[in-house]
C-alpha cells in the first residue's frame, strides 16, 4: 500500500535497514577476511582490513583452478538451457494443442517428474551414464540436466501456450506452413516472456548444482565451479583468508549477472511459479 512518507514510514525504514545490515554481516565477515593477511585475521577478526591485501585472490584463483571451472560451468549451463528450451517448448506445444486422453496422460507423466526426488533413481542413473560412457563428460551432464529439468520446463511452457489464442497458428497452417514452420515463426516468438523465466530458473539451478557434478565429473578435469570450490575449501580448510578469497571469487560471476539483470531475475523467480 503506497501512501505518503510519514514518521511511521521513517521508523520502518530504520528497522528494515538495520535488518539488512544484520543480514549482510556474514558477507562482511567473509569479504574482509579475504583482504586480510593471516596476522590480521588472528588479531583483528572483525575489523576492516588494514592495509588490505589482495594476495589471497591470486593464490585462490590458481589453487582452485577457477578459470577452467568457470568455462566448464558456462559450457554445461548454456548448452543444457538451450536444449531444455528447444525440447521443452516443442513438447509443450504438442501437449497444449493436442486434446485427448493420451496427450493428457503424457502431461501428467511429465508432472510426476516435478515431485519425484532424483535420489530414487540416482544410483541406477549413475550406472546408466557409466554404461553409456558419459561419466566425466559434458554430454553426460547436459543429458542429466535436460532430463531432470524437463518436467518443470514443460509445465511452465504448457500453461503459457494454453493461454495463447490458437488463431495465429491456424491461419499460418491453413496458408500452407508446416507445423515446424508455424512453431518457429509464429509460436516461439510469442513465448518470449515464459522463455525468459525458463532460462533464468534453469540457468541458476544448473550453475549452482553440486551433488551430481561431484558424482559425475569428480576427477575428470571438467569440474564445475561448486565442485572445485568444495575440493578447494576442504583442502585449505584452516587457511581462512585463502578460503574466503576463493569463495568471493567463485560467487562473484553469478552475483554480477544478477545485479545487472536483477529486475528480470526477480521477476523470473516470482512469476514463473504461478500455477
Amino acid at each position: 500500500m503506497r501512501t505518503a512518507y510519514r514518521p511511521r514510514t521513517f521508523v520502518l525504514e530504520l528497522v528494515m535497514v538495520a535488518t539488512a545490515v544484520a543480514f549482510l554481516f556474514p558477507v562482511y565477515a567473509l569479504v574482509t577476511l579475504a583482504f586480510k593477511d593471516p596476522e590480521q585475521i588472528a588479531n583483528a577478526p572483525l575489523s576492516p582490513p588494514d592495509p588490505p591485501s589482495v594476495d589471497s585472490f591470486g593464490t585462490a584463483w590458481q589453487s582452485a583452478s577457477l578459470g577452467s571451472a568457470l568455462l566448464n560451468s558456462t559450457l554445461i549451463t548454456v548448452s543444457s538451457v538451450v536444449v531444455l528450451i528447444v525440447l521443452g517448448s516443442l513438447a509443450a506445444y504438442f501437449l497444449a494443442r493436442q486434446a485427448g486422453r493420451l496427450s493428457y496422460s503424457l502431461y501428467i507423466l511429465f508432472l510426476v517428474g516435478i515431485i519425484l526426488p532424483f535420489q530414487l533413481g540416482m544410483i541406477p542413473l549413475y550406472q546408466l551414464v557409466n554404461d553409456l560412457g558419459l561419466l566425466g563428460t559434458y554430454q553426460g551432464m547436459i543429458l542429466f540436466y535436460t532430463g531432470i529439468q524437463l518436467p518443470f520446463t514443460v509445465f511452465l511452457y504448457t500453461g503459457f501456450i494454453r493461454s495463447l489464442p490458437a488463431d495465429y497458428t491456424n491461419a499460418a497452417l491453413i496458408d500452407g506452413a508446416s507445423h515446424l514452420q508455424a512453431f518457429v515463426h509464429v509460436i516461439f516468438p510469442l513465448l518470449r516472456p515464459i522463455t525468459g523465466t525458463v532460462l533464468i530458473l534453469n540457468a541458476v539451478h544448473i550453475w549452482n548444482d553440486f551433488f551430481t557434478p561431484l558424482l559425475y565429473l569428480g576427477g575428470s578435469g571438467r569440474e564445475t565451479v561448486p565442485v572445485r570450490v568444495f575440493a578447494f575449501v576442504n583442502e585449505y580448510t584452516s587457511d581462512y583468508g585463502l578460503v574466503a578469497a576463493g569463495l568471493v571469487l567463485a560467487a562473484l560471476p553469478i552475483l554480477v549477472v544478477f545485479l545487472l539483470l536483477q529486475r528480470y531475475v526477480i521477476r523470473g523467480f516470482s512469476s514463473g511459479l504461478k500455477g
Partner: protein
Amino acid sequence: MTAVMAPPVKPAPPPVKRVRRGGGIAPPWLFAAPALLVYALVMLYPSIVGAGSAFTDWSGVGEQRSFVGFDNFQELVHDDQALGALRNTLLLTLAIVVVQNGLGLLLALGVHTTIKSRMVLRVIFFAPVVVSPVMVSFLWKYVYNPAPDAGLNAALNAVGLGALRQDWLGDPSLAIWSVAFTVIWQCAGYSMVIFLAGLEGVPKELHESAMVDGAGTVARFRHITWPLLAPAVTINVMLSTVGGLTLFTQIIAMTNGGPGYATDTLSTVLYKQAFVFGKFGYSTAVALVLAIFVAAVSFLQIGYLRSRETTA
C-alpha cells in the same frame, strides 16, 4: 472433442488438419518425442529400477542381486541412524517452512511500502538465492567458527553478548538449528519475492475503502491481505517443504551429518549407505521412503492449501 465432427446430415469435412478442443490444429506426436525420450531415460527408467532394487540386496557392483522382499524396510525401522535422520529431516523441514516463510512475509510487507530503500533492500535480501548452496554453506561454516574470537562468536562478544557464544556446529543439540538457519538465511528472499508478487495483486481500492470504514493496519492485513495471499502461501509452503525434505548439500558441506548422526537427513543417509557402505539395495529403500514422503506431503498440502484458496 467430438464437438467439431460434422453431424451425419452434412458431408464429412475434408480430411485436412483436424481442429481439436485445445483450440488449435494439433501438431504431430513427433514434437513431444525427443523430450519424452530424454525424460524417460534420465528420470522414469532409473526411478523404476531404483524402486525395484529397494526390494533386493544389490551391492551396486555387478549384476548380482536377489529379491529380499521387505527386508530392507524391516532393517530401516530398526536402524537408529535412519530413524534419527527421518526425525532430523522432519524437524529441519518444519523449521525451514515456518521460519523462512514467516521471515519472507515480514520482509515482503516491509519492502512493499513507500520506504526509500525498498528497491535496494529487495536486491540485498534476494541476492543469496542465486549463490550456490555449497558456497553459502561454507560462508556460514566460517560464521559458526567454534573459536571464541571468530565469526558470530566474535560479533556477539563485540556487542556485549559474549555469554551467548556457542560451538554452533559442534554441539549435537544445536547443530541442526544452525544448519536450518543457514538455509533460512539463503532462501528467505525467495519467499519474499513470491509474497511480493502476491501483495502487488491485492487491489488498492480494497485497502482504501477499508480505511474509510476505519479498519486499522492489523485488521486490514487479517481480512484483506492475508486471504488474498493464499496462492503465494501455497507456492511458498510447497517449495520450502520439498526443499527441506530433500536437504543434502548444506549438510554435506557444513557437518557431513555430524556430530555423530546429529544432522544426518534421509538424503545424506541414503548417500552414505550407497557410496560409503556399498549397500545400494538398502539405500534405494531409504530413497523410496523419501519419495513416498515427498509425494504424500505434496498431495496433502496441495489439497489443503488449494481449498483454503477457494474458500478465502
